[in-house]
């Protein structure tokens, strides 16, 4: 399947900085000007504009210029900012609940091996179940309102955090633990000085995933449960066939998603500097 793209090429890393190069070397190299990026974006924009103008029915597809106009209108309307604030609030609540529980349960499972093996298998099983499948249950048990949504968001966040925390706790160097124990450190002290500091970098990669998934959870909850925030906005636009607004809202979601991922990556880098 890949042989056609593959055959016509010589060794891979030619002319490119080796990814295993040290950070110093990467910093020294001047920033490559990405013509490809500009060309790609330009082509995309032109195709979008032309397709919207000449090819599609306006109800299905709007040219880029109209979508940008709609984007401006969106940014100047208080409706949008209120929706964004509402979603953000839901995100923060769900994220903190999910992270908190995920960290605690992760450390417990990872540290107390006897119970851990059983609990871990259940966490794994629930982790591979699409979290969206929980929404009908939450809906029929808890109904509408704010907390069901927050529960859904924290469900999305909980599992990646918990699982990476378990891995992190397991990866704590046994030598460090032995040293701590032989110097008479109690369990609480060991957690504080050994377990948590060496788990945190692992947990951070879970938290990074949790941030991204939590954002998905917000949209899912707002779309499928009590409609509010950005989810409500999307729903309204699609039901009213306001295609330009719908596209603008989706673009906003894309940028929110990208920035949420960037924040997650920044957080991970910031706190995980001592991970090998």
């Amino acid at each position, binding site marked *: 399947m890949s042989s056609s793209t593959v055959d016509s090429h*010589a*060794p891979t890393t030619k002319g*490119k900085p080796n990814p295993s190069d040290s950070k110093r070397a990467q910093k020294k190299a001047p920033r490559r000007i990405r013509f490809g990026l500009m*060309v790609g974006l330009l082509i995309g924009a032109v195709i979008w504009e032309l397709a919207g103008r000449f090819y599609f029915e306006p109800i299905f597809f709007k040219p880029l210029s109209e979508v940008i106009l709609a984007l401006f209108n969106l940014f100047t309307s208080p409706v949008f900012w209120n929706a964004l604030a509402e979603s953000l609030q839901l995100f923060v609540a769900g994220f903190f609940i999910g992270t908190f529980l995920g960290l605690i349960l992760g450390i417990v499972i990872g540290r107390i091996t006897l119970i851990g*093996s059983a609990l871990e298998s259940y966490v794994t099983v629930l982790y591979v179940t699409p979290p969206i499948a929980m929404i009908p249950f939450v809906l029929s048990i808890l109904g509408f309102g704010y907390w069901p949504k927050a529960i859904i968001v924290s469900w999305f966040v909980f599992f990646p955090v918990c699982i990476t925390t378990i891995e992190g706790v397991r990866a704590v160097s046994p030598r460090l633990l032995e040293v701590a124990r032989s110097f008479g450190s109690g369990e609480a002290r060991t957690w504080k000085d050994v377990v948590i500091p060496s788990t945190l970098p692992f947990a951070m990669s879970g938290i990074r995933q949790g941030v991204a998934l939590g954002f998905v959870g917000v949209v899912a909850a707002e779309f499928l449960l009590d409609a509010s925030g950005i989810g409500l906005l999307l729903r309204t636009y*699609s039901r009213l066939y306001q295609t330009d607004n*719908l596209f603008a809202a989706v673009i906003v979601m894309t940028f929110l*998603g990208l920035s949420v991922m960037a924040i997650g990556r920044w957080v991970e880098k910031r706190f995980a500097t001592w991970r090998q």
Partner: protein
Amino acid sequence: MATVIQSPVIGEDTKTTPTVKKKRRSWKNSIAWLATTLVILIIWQIGVGLFGKDYMATPIGVITAVPDVLFNDPKLWPGVWETFAVVFRGLILSVVVGTALGLIMGRVTFVADALAPYVNGFYATPMIAVLPIITLWLGFNTSATFALVVFAAIPPMAVAAWDGSRTIPVRYLEVAKSFGARRRDVWVGIAIPASLPYLLAGFRLASGRALSAVVIAEFLIGTGDGLGIHIMRLAQNFNHNEAIVAIMILTLVGLFLAIGIERILRRRYPWFRKS
């Protein structure tokens, strides 16, 4: 594919896994496992009995619902078939397109620069946000579900193939070259085996996202007879026990994909660490 390709260069020293320690502890672990499981189930059963509502799922209810759902529910297996047919078709398409895209991106920097904003952007956009647009274009039917699966599964495959094709150790290529390897040998012997763990990891992500996508799409589209719709209807009619049995099928497929691939990765590519 992974079972066929024996990587002569990389996968040499893989078969040394410390199993002795594990075996010694395993009976103790399995007793602990059983005990904890029992405690969880008892707490669940009693908790629902005391505080829950009578339609909520309980372990006993779920167990008694299993034969009922599996054998007497006329809508279950057609739904399973419909849903997973969409998932697997979508995954196959995504693997082919995503891998091709990623490999081209790994080869040609210009293409990578041009496509990166799209791949990253699609990756970051929540699937649910795109669904209104997809249904607007394709209508409320199975092809919209299929489109969402593909939308969800292509970006992780592309990113994985992209990463994989960029991280082939130069040393291997140099050795191969100095021993006069032909280009085809380099690809079959080095490049593909070296990027396989990445592809497998990408496939794991992609399959997880595809499962989510199919459920989301069926929930929101609301027509058809897929497994997702079936779960939704069962849950909304307060048949929670039956709904959980149906979800378990979803989970089993998810587990099969995730753990099966994890196993392959661990066994064949122990040097490969995920993320």
